[in-house]
């Protein structure tokens, strides 16, 4: 059986196993959860080492028939198909190695109903891995929706004061998007009589343009809500803020990547023609997201909310890079997905550690923390610099590639994006100053204990990865090279075809129609 089946279902088996352990023995529960997630992480590393980055096609494929539906003309087999390629490999491995860290980070704040927490955590891991590994539309949707439920419980049970509002809002927002996607997905499967992703890629052009357009947007809507792209971002701030630390880490680290992954896989790879036609829409939304998210972050008084808003800004970069539709842009965006997971994950861990000690997240309740928690301060500054894109750390590589790629496609939106880098530095450094430096005014903060070995142990692997990506990004970029090169070439070909098609249109039709087309393209 393929390794991918084990990676996807081992967490699920673990969840079932943990469900039978005694609920009172939290120590055993934690060890069991750590054991399962570590095992999956080891499998993830095996997958990483055996993955050949120069191949464009999915590897480690696993296919079984699941069921058959009669749709219109013929029977469409729905298959249980898993596979990993350059688009998904980074996210899969990130998910597997982030999970033990999430389990360890739950120590401080998950003290009641521990068993349930780990069950949901592991179910969620299975769901997320399934999303990244599915090569069948129905299976993808299946995992996509399944991964919603655990987070709904995690935020709703272990979250902050406004957790119920936040969790229901999160669920309804996401479900609204996914149900519209469901209709689009059915129409796609129906129209092309196939649910096999690899078969559908390259065949979507057979559909009429109007059908392609609405199906593309039905997919894009679901993913845009998940990312979240600008007008749909309000659920994120609430869910992030109210989630327990480990939930936030997971949300930032992996869950939001489901949205950007979807945009890449089902927006660009599945509908290259539509992506070329409507790239400007996403460039605008991405660039606006960068700036707007940064402004939102600047205005926050709650440290956790600030980090949540910074996610909107950072993911704006990813959307910008993806829809620049140039090779450096897409590769940078894929790397930036990982970077955001690492940096923002670290930031949420740091905020959580401070919250466990002070029971507040308000910026004005801090100040001068560096004098009592020097080690904490080191990690905090490191993370902020990585998030702000200091050369030599991970954020720089991703943002640079994205901006370079965007500049090729559209200098204007690249310029807008660059301002985001500046604003990012502003709010992150402002927050750092207000938390770490200045006078230690609040008496309660004078006796804070510095971070302990466990907390350092949680953060250290992430920091190592931050430096590694910053210094030697090719280790990671090479794994994605085959698939993303092929994708970029296809998109480029599509762009040339469209331009040629327009040119032919101009020659064949009379002058007035050519001018209207020219106006449209402007």
């Amino acid at each position: 059986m393929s390794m991918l089946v084990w990676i996807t279902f081992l967490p699920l088996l673990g969840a079932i196993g943990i469900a039978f352990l005694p609920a009172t023995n939290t120590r055993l529960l934690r060890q069991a959860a750590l054991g399962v997630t570590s095992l999956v992480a080891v499998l993830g590393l095996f997958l990483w080492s055996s993955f050949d980055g120069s191949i464009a096609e999915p590897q480690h494929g696993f296919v079984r028939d699941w069921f058959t539906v009669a749709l219109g003309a013929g029977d469409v087999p729905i298959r249980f198909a898993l596979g990993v390629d350059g688009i998904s490999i980074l996210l899969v491995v990130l998910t597997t190695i982030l999970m033990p860290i999430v389990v360890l980070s739950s120590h401080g704040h998950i003290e009641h109903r521990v068993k349930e927490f780990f069950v949901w955590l592991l179910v969620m891991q299975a769901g997320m891995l399934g999303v990244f590994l599915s090569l069948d539309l129905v299976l993808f949707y299946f995992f996509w929706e399944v991964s919603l439920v655990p987070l709904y419980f995690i935020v709703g049970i272990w979250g902050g004061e406004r957790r119920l509002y936040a969790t229901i809002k999160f669920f309804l927002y996401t479900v609204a998007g996914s149900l519209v996607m469901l209709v689009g997905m059915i129409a796609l499967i129906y129209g092309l009589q196939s649910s096999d992703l690899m078969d559908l890629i390259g065949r979507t052009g057979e559909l009429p343009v109007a059908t392609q357009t609405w199906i593309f947007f039905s997919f894009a809507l679901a993913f845009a809500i998940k990312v979240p792209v600008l007008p749909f971002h309000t659920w994120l701030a609430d869910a992030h803020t109210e989630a327990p630390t480990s939930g936030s880490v997971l949300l930032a680290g992996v869950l939001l990547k489901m949205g950007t992954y979807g945009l890449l896989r089902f927006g660009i790879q599945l509908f290259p023609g539509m992506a070329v036609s409507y790239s400007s829409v996403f460039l605008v939304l991405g660039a606006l997201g960068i700036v707007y998210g940064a402004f939102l972050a600047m205005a926050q008084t709650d440290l956790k909310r600030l980090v949540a808003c910074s996610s909107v800004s950072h993911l704006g970069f990813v959307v910008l890079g993806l829809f620049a539709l140039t090779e450096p842009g897409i590769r940078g965006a894929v790397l930036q997905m990982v970077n955001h997971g690492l940096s923002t994950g670290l930031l949420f861990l740091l905020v959580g550690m401070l919250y466990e000690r002070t029971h507040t997240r308000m910026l004005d309740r801090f100040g001068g923390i560096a004098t009592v928690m020097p080690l904490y301060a080191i990690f905090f500054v490191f993370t902020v610099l990585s998030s702000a894109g200091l050369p030599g750390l991970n954020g720089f590589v991703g943002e640079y590639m994205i901006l370079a790629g965007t500049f090729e496609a559209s200098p204007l939106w690249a310029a807008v994006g660059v301002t985001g880098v500046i604003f990012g530095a502003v709010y992150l450094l402002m927050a750092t100053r207000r938390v770490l430096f200045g006078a230690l005014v609040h008496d309660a903060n004078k006796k804070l204990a510095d971070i302990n070995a466990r907390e350092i142990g949680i953060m250290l692997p992430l920091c190592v990865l931050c430096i590694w990506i910053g210094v030697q990004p090719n280790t990671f970029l090479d794994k994605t090279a085959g698939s993303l090169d092929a994708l970029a070439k296809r998109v480029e070909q599509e762009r040339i075809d469209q331009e040629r098609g327009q040119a032919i249109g101009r020659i064949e039709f009379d002058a007035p129609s050519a001018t209207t087309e020219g106006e449209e393209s402007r």
Partner: protein
Amino acid sequence: MSQQTVAAAFEIFDDAASVATAPLLTIGVGVLLYLVCDIVPRLRAARGLAFCGTILVALFFELRILGADVVPGLVLDKTFHADHTTALFGCVFLLGTLLAWAYSVGYYHASKPFKPEHDALMLGAPAGMMLMVGANDLIVFFIGLELLSLPLYCLAAFKRSRIESVEAGVKYFLLGSFASAMLLYGSALVYTASGTLSIPGLLDADLSSSTAVAGLALIAASLFFKVSVFPFHMWVPDVYQGSPTPVTALMATGTKAAAFGFLVAQVMPLLPPSGAPIVAVLGLVTMALGNLGALVQSDLKRMLAYSGVAHAGTLLLVVAGGMAGADAAGALNATLYYMVAYVFTATGAFGLLALMEADGARFTKLDSLRGLAKSRPGVAGAMALFMLSLGGIPATGGFLGKWFAFSVLVDAGMIGTAIIGALLSVVALGYYLRVIVVMYMQPASDVEPAPTTQRPMTAGIATIVCGVFVLATGLLPSLFLAPLAG
């Protein structure tokens, strides 16, 4: 009766007919057997056995049809038919009845002396349902409908100590009879216009005259009443809430499944395609009313009643899709799958409410579920599963039912309707999630629930069966689709 007609009657009742009607006859014999067991004091202990045995034997006959390569098809002078679809429907009806009965075992305290009558009436109900989905003739369908409705009228009023139950019974009886009358009058008009009552005959007949259209509209309206579609849905919340909960489970699932089965298999092909937009709008309005109505309820039973209305709306969209040109077999399969999933989900949900009531809760208020996850993790887990299935979240049958329903709409090219329907079902998740919120995310209320009464094992088994079927319909659809493919 002359000798010839008697001989003809025997001629009609050939082998195929005996196979097709075996489940029906089993139920008939079973009811009599049950009553005999009740009268003879020495046999009283065997009443439960008689009930279960009857259902299981009927189930065996249905499974025989389901597993056979050659199905009886049209029998009894083309008035009744049995194929894989009706057999699967029959299995679902029988299992649904068995489950509802299992939940009723510990439910009645005050009316306990009359429990045998209750069981006998309940045992008769699936015969009506099976007759309805197998009917190929308007009169046969009417007989099936009455065979189902009359026991339900009585059962709705069975908790005689409660005024709500009596009210429910009377309301259901009056409005239900009205609907039956509409069906009869519609059939009469159709007969006047076409000269036939048989569905195959009507398919060939010209039904464009105004008399025939009025007749079909009346038939459709009476079916809409039975499945609780706007504007005939007003009775649902009161009747569902007032009836004893196990009866509500049977009413909500069985009646709806049987009426939709007949509507999609037999009536839908008769309806003119030009009516599709009207039916689609009715479906959407029903979904909206059901979901918005459910959203504001604080009583769980009422909430589930409105949710049932919303589900009827979704299925009506399937009917609209079928009228607008979607593959008829696809529409029937979608309806069937949706109903299979819904029957087990809703029966389980209502059944758990019955348990709560049996434990002493006077009303099934949402708040009385507070902290259930802690006090009774098993019940809360099952309830959460049923809620997710009603909401159509994957890994449950509700999701695939929704998937197939929307597929029919896409097949018919009704994309706009599908998207509006999809968005309306987001509203539904609002209240399904609230149940989970109350059970899992809010602390238990100060008032301790009444001490748990001795709960019969049957209810636990029924819940497990419902849960297994909800998951099986969600994960292994081929089990249910394979017999239909042939």
